[in-house]
């Protein structure tokens, strides 16, 4: 037998060829340590990408793509997969040519280079960033078949940055200072009005995400972090902060990011992203691939008002609920990972998750939201998502009575 050729031996043996036959990678050398100065995922993970939906917008240059939540785990979103939303494409800023100016109601109007900013004390915090329009497609009913598209306008990143208050204190705030206008260096010149109190509380001028420099599509070299508040306020490519006594009511806080109610009136300054959760697996893009038996359900929960204290899961469309297991770090205004393991009997399921935050706010049903806000809001849809698992394991985005 020892002399028999390998293939013959394997054929004679009983079992899985994946074990019985040698693989190239068991025998031959792979790339050395000089081959990948900056690494990339396995070729077998080529489908793990941000995806956009062409018909959503007029042009991909002012559009959005979505984080593949169903292919991730834990709470950190890798930088290459953090969803993108920009209004004039990715600004490719040269940090040597980048400045941050503080002007307006300050004692001294200041200019900082990147090197200047590196001299202020820094903080490291994990925060989610959710676009106010995340799940916005679903206001009128189930639309897109996959949590990447229904919930993928979110990412969760560890930022390193300078507390904005240090920069403001360096400039010296006038006593009538009440509002800030952060402004981007991109061709959209993005601006938002931010109340000074928030800025002094926990805003960061962030320059690193998950340890390395911000990615260009996330505002390289600096962006504003506005923890827990809608993503549009996290101005990217930040180049100026004006201090004022009144809000500016700029385009992104009037024409956009205001919630239109059924009666035609509209809410403004709806900044916090309310408590929300979604089951990422199983989900339409990630069906159950095994027969009945022990299975892992997992998902993400977050709240812009604090931490997540509890997530409940229902397998029967909200009739009965069980507490899920939250695992991994629980930070304020950061995504939480939850699991619910159960023995699947192979019959159809209607999966839901319901998160509760440290302020005691309970994630509402979509119908509860519609009852108070109608269906024209576009933004701030934090309703409970339902996935219909069929007996074959296939999953569909549905709504239930």
């Amino acid at each position, binding site marked *: 037998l020892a002399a028999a050729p390998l293939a013959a031996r394997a054929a004679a043996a009983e079992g899985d060829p994946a074990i019985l036959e040698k693989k190239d990678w068991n025998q031959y050398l792979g790339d050395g340590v000089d081959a990948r100065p900056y690494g990339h995922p396995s070729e077998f993970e080529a489908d793990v990408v941000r995806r956009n939906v062409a018909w959503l917008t007029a042009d991909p240059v002012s559009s959005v793509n979505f984080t593949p939540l169903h292919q991730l785990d834990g709470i950190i979103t890798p930088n290459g997969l953090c969803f993108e939303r920009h209004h004039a494409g990715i600004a490719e800023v040269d940090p040597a040519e980048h400045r941050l100016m503080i002007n307006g109601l300050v004692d001294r109007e200041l200019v900082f280079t990147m090197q200047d900013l590196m001299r202020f004390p820094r903080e490291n915090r994990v925060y989610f960033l959710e676009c106010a329009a995340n799940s916005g497609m679903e206001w009128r009913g189930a639309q897109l078949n996959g949590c990447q598209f229904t919930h993928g306008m979110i990412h969760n990143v560890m930022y390193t940055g300078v507390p904005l208050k240090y920069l403001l204190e360096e400039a010296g705030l006038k006593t009538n200072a009440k509002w800030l206008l952060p402004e981007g260096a991109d061709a959209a010149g993005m601006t938002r009005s931010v109340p000074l109190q928030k800025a002094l509380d926990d805003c960061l001028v962030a320059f690193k995400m998950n340890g390395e420099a911000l990615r260009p599509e996330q505002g390289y070299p600096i962006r504003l972090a506005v923890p827990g508040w809608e993503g549009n306020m996290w101005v990217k490519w930040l180049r100026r902060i004006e201090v004022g006594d009144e809000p500016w009511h700029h385009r992104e806080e009037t024409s956009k990011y205001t919630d239109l109610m059924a009666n035609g009136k509209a809410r*403004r300054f709806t900044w916090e992203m309310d408590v929300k959760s979604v089951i990422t697996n199983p989900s339409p893009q990630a069906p159950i691939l095994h027969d009945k038996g022990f299975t892992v359900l997992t998902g993400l929960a977050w709240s812009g008002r604090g931490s997540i204290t509890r997530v409940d899961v229902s397998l029967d469309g909200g009739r009965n609920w069980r507490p899920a297991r939250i695992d991994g770090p629980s930070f304020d205004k950061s995504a939480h990972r939850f699991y619910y393991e159960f023995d699947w009997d192979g019959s159809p399921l209607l999966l839901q998750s319901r998160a509760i935050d440290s302020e005691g706010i309970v994630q509402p049903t979509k119908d509860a939201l519609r009852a108070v806000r109608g269906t024209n809001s576009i933004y701030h849809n934090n309703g409970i998502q339902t996935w219909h698992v069929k007996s074959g394991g296939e999953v569909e985005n549905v709504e239930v009575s």
Partner: protein
Amino acid sequence: GEKFGIGREATKDEVAAWDIDVRPDGTGLPDGSGTVADGEEIFAERCAVCHGDFGEGVDRWPVLAGGQDTLSSDRPVKTIGSYWPYLSTVYDYINRAMPFGEAQSLTPDEVYAITAYLLYMNDVVTDDEFELSKENFTDIHLPNEENFFEDPRPDTATLKDGEPCMSGCKEKVEITMRARVLDVTPDTEDDESGAGSID
């Protein structure tokens, strides 16, 4: 100020170069003016390819005019005339971000003129000889200004309203809606497309 001694004072010219924002009270408006007629011409040349000659929007590019009385309908059309609360936002946004792909290429007079034309198209001014200027700017109010109100959340249940139901919460559950767009992987010609848009 001066806690750390880092950074330097901005020059007047530097602040002037970047300080372009405009507020509802007129703060930030530069000197200048422009008429509806001037605006029509500039708009046709630099804006209409996307937004249409009358702000009606080409393809999926934004609609800028019309939509009055649609806000409580099933398909609200949110435009400067129907939705925007303040005229300053029009000036500020066009000046900073339009034309798309050639941002900050317009002079103050051009922006005043385009803004005047947009007011005209939105029936906020009806005189086609109207001239908008720094001086008369804050006299103009957009029709929907009063219909914005401050965020009143939380507007859904909290634990104060009682513990959330854990068992037997409903009699029966039925599927009432299914995903409109089943094939979300944008890899084939025959991909379905859905309604709505993101803003």
